[in-house]
């Protein structure tokens, strides 16, 4: 990755993209605190299927969400090549379990297209925008709806 790409100009945003199943997703890089390898999570009793459990992040009890299950796809089994993306939105910090991290993208606002109505299916509400690059379609996640919190759905 070239240096000049790391310095986003004013209307540009940096995004971290990762693979979940066969699809590409991304989140604003400013919300990402760190990326770490998969460690076995301690399951929480009576939790929804997408809550993988909790892991020890340097002494903090960090809940891990299986992004695939959260988006209505098959749950990720959790193997060594899987990755936990630790994100923070407001007061809430959680880990997103993804298949693999792909890239860091620098895009301007105009490159982000609003998600079409047709995408508003089961997982459509978690998608904030779409980016088309190199004939790939990358979905920008709306973390507020993904993370548990005030607007948690009855999953």
């Amino acid at each position, binding site marked *: 990755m070239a240096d000049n790409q790391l310095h986003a100009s004013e209307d540009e945003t940096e995004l971290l993209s990762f693979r979940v199943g066969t699809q590409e997703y991304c989140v604003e890089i400013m919300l990402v605190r760190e990326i770490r390898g998969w460690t076995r999570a*301690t399951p*929480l009793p009576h939790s929804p299927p997408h809550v993988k459990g*909790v892991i020890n992040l340097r*002494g903090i*009890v960090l809940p891990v969400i299986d992004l695939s299950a959260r988006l209505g796809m098959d749950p990720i089994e959790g193997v060594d090549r899987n990755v936990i993306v630790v994100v923070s939105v407001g007061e809430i910090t959680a880990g997103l379990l993804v298949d693999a991290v792909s890239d860091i993208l620098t895009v301007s606002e105009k490159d982000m297209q609003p998600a079409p109505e047709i995408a508003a299916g089961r997982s459509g509400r978690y998608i904030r925008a779409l980016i088309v690059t190199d004939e790939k379609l990358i979905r920008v996640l709306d973390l507020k709806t993904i993370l548990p919190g005030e607007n948690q759905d009855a999953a």
Partner: protein
Amino acid sequence: MTTDPMAEIRTSFFAECDELLESLQDALNLMDEGEHDSETINVVFRAVHSIKGGAGAFGLDALVSFAHQYETVMDEVRSGRLVPDASAIKLFFRAADMLQDIVRTTRDEQHPPPGIEDMLALLKALLHEDAQELDEPVAFTPLGLSLEFDLGAPAIDVAPAEIDDDFGWTITFTPNAGLYASGNEALLILRSLSNLGHCVIRCLVPEDLPPPDESNAETPLLSWRIILEEDVPESDIRQVFDFVNDVCQLQISPRKVIDDLAPTRPERISPTAEAALPPVGSTSAKKPAGDDACPISSAASKVSLVPHPRPARPVDTNAHEPATMVRVDMEKIDRLVNLIGELVINQAMLAQSVETAGMSQQSDIMAGLESFMTLTRDIKESVMTIRAQPVKSLFQRMARIVREASASVEKEVRLKSVGEYTEVDKTVIERLADPLTQMIRNAVDHGLERPDVRRAASKPPEGQITLSASHRAGRVLIEIEDDGAGIDRPKVRDIAIQKRLIAPDASLTDAEIDQLLFLPGFSTATEVSALSGRGVGMDVVKAAITSLGGRITTTSVPGQGTKFSISLPLTLAVLDGMVVQAAGQTLVVPLSAIIETAKLEEQNIHRLSASGMMMRFRQELVPLFDLGQKLGFRDMRDIAAAGIVLLTVQEDGRRAALIVDAIMEQRQVVIKGLGQTCGHIPGVAAATILGDGQIALILDPGDLVWGGASSPHFDTKAG
């Protein structure tokens, strides 16, 4: 001055008030025990006076006027004109309580508590008619001279200068405008100073002293030079001036030095500012940057020769505190406690990996690791002691509860506290206040008999409650003991039957009957009083103690009294737990919830329905659950194959047996909150990190088995 430092000073004033109120209580307790020496009375006087002075500086009128009356009475006591009897001391206690209330309401900016006027009247009634005026001829006082002396005289020797040795201090005290306006009184300060030792005080009078009238009544015009012929620490002197620090100029120098520069013979003392503030003082005075705390009023600048208010405040307001004390934000300590928890876990992980790597026991690494472990443990323990506080403040609150409770039920009660310097985690102290209050009220209301009954039983009419704290086997033991009639077991039994808490034919041991007191909605007082209500409490008390990881036990001897013993962990940050396995998961069960462990045997299992099971446990049937299944970690299975049961108990005595696959070990674990992200998970209290870095959940067996109904609250139906 911006609002921020003001708020800070205000906060520190109220913090000091708490300390002063504490020393006030201590001294009153001593007086109550028959100690009438002048030092004890002085402590009371000084505490009240300091509160008044500080309150004056902040313009807290309600506080000033109450403290003033209190101080006036104490001054009478101090001068020996008023000899307090038992009822007067009781009144002093109540006045101290009232003072505390006023401090509290002032701090929280609420309305002052009711009853101030009544208390003031009661205090006033103690005074002799001729003593209503706070005037007192004291050898060194410059009062009474102000109108008679020759205005031309540069300085007046009030007391002959008996300078025969060269130790002690020379103090120059020049009030600024605002000193009198803020409720301070130079006379009282000089008197306090003379308590430190023999003082030679001279008053420095300006040459153009204006005639007194109402417009300048609060304008300080005089200053004083005091020679204290006593080798006391400078901080003691500073303490006397503590509350006027910012409204006066103060020079304190050792005698020797000042004698060289400014001989004490009167004719050599010039009344000018230069002489009143000798150069030696100004060089030693460390001027705090930007401290212009002494604004001069127009009235003062017009009339006084008081030197221009150089902020000669060599020390800040906290200087009287021992240098070893630091006020620290609780949050910072909590963060440190968390980090130490990390360290403990990390060290355990390191030890484990060294072991896995197959290091020899004799290697340097193992030796180093060993001392690392010792250090970690030491650090952990000393950090825990930072959070610890003596239970004294809590006990003093209880003393007040006893006073109020005994007054309202017309019983004579004396509270004896033992071991009030026992240190307990701050959070434990805070959360112990409510249950302890309830227990003390119960002891006064239910435990102790009325005076006539006591006399009939040839006991002293005054009942005694002993509140004690001590450390025992890594836990804190708090005991509340009364010398009352003891638990009336036949009556307790009758009530329990009447309330259908037990079967009429149940045969119960004494200990079991005592336990009935902790059942929700139990009441033994035949006369329902407003004080302890209808026996509300003991169940709530028990729940509160249990939530702190404590246990409560009762011993009672008929006719001799009742003792409640509360055993608490030293800290809330670590917990004694049993590490168990269920359905492949490692879990921690708090040791305080486990009564015993046993092997599960088929013949003891009673199947009630497809999912409901009971287990016979020493002639008692308790509900039986498979832990793994209860947590949703596995489906129903044939439980006969499983091995071990934990018999757990709830704070309300309800029991349940939990099947686990294996018991791993018993150890202390560091408690980690699950955080809001996870929300409340039924049956899970918190989490911890084990030596392998994995998170294990800490169970709340009561919540797991009985769900939301696990924490007993007072049931109004049962009352």
